[in-house]
């Protein structure tokens, strides 16, 4: 094993609270990632700068009409990840500090990664 990886499942309502505790402890945001299986799984990855400790919060959302609160009020750098989630997966995130309104990636297809045909390799 390269490093110990801690993946903790949390609920949407607890997200802002837990993230602000991490900010106070000095963690930095590494990435926000989403996986589409039979549901949407959003991973918020954080890293403790001094010890390179890896921590991941996992939220599960339904495939359609998924909604999340924005963490740009705590970590401004999250705006790029949240715009990407909105463009590729169609998740509605309210309160993004710099909101591109769906034009972050200039793509023709709406939410290509959440489209069952494209995402399953049929097209």
């Amino acid at each position: 094993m390269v490093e110990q990886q801690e993946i903790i499942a949390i609920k949407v309502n607890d997200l802002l609270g837990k993230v602000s505790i991490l900010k106070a402890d000095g963690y930095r945001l590494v990435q926000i990632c989403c996986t589409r299986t039979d549901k949407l799984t959003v991973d918020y990855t954080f890293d403790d700068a001094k010890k390179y400790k890896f921590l991941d919060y996992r939220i599960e959302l339904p495939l359609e009409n998924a909604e999340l609160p924005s963490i740009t009020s705590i970590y401004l750098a999250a705006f790029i990840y949240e715009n990407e989630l909105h463009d590729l997966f169609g998740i509605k995130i309210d309160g993004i500090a710099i909101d591109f309104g769906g034009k972050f990636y200039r793509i023709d297809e709406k939410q290509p990664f959440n489209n069952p045909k494209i995402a399953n390799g049929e097209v």
Partner: protein
Amino acid sequence: MSKRTIIPFGPQHPVLPEPIHLDLVLEDEVVVEAIPNVGFIHRGLELLCKRKSFTDMVLVAERICGICSMIHGVGFCQATEEVMKLEIPKRAEFLRVFWGELSRIHSHILWLGLAADAIGFESLFMHSWRVRELVLDIFEETTGGRIIFDVCKVGGVKKDIDDSTLQRIMKQLTEVETEYKKLADVFINDYTIVHRWANIGTLSKEDAHVLGAVGPCARASGLVQDMRQLGYGAYKNLDFEPVIETAGDCYARALVRVKEVYQALDLMRQVANKLPKGETEVKVVGFPEGEFFTRVEQPRGEVIYYVKGNGTKFLERFRVRTPTFANIPPLVHMLAGCDLADVPAIVIAIDPCISCTER
């Protein structure tokens, strides 16, 4: 109240190696804010994991970017090997580090050339790329390709370096180092370069931490952050210290990259001395099932790979978050308050690799 104008920067600009668009809001030649716009090279490579088997995805991962190609291959292979609980031979780990550090030297010398071109110092740009050709010859001799190496596979490496070739390459590297020293001297001490880059685009340590800066951008602001300290691959057997500067301006970022080339040459010498004998690959049996995040240090910073397998030969999800993607918020912060004439120098200082950013 002075009038505000909006000037588009990019997607085509002489200083940019790849297209990125910035809308610069100006008040009389001082940039007030910058709005980034990416998406010109979005190819949707992450979705290819559903159509290409996981052994073929190494080829796709290597082709996300031309400059950082080797380490993308290493990261993907490492993530898949951790999911499948494969232990690769020691010789393969050391060879991956050898080629990875050579790739870092190549990337930094390429950047030094582009940065010199950005301030108009064309002869320095040409000489940097002349030294880079010596490094590319070593790549072609050992892997068969100048830019895309095709040397990583799930389970080890495809090619081997025998002892006589290794000794010859180490001699070639001393020649590279002699040539490189002359250039490094110019980058560190030349009056024009210091004047153009000092105190431009300053990023303080707290801002770098809060905005999530990675790589030489973070290390130039005093943050000690180098993913090689995690000890993946053969790095746990090698001795090195991250290169740190505290000034946080463009000159400090250039200094970090100049010194990292010397560090990479030292690491390669350690690898050549400690290279163990043995096999270079392990047979891959079965399909990946499970998930793993792996973090690797690219020349531009920390890159994180997420691989999720579901027991078939096609992966469920392959996600890459590259360092330039994480360096865009610090870039937007640095551009606020600078002069219009300094915008190219600041943009090139974060080492933008936009094909990595929007795979």
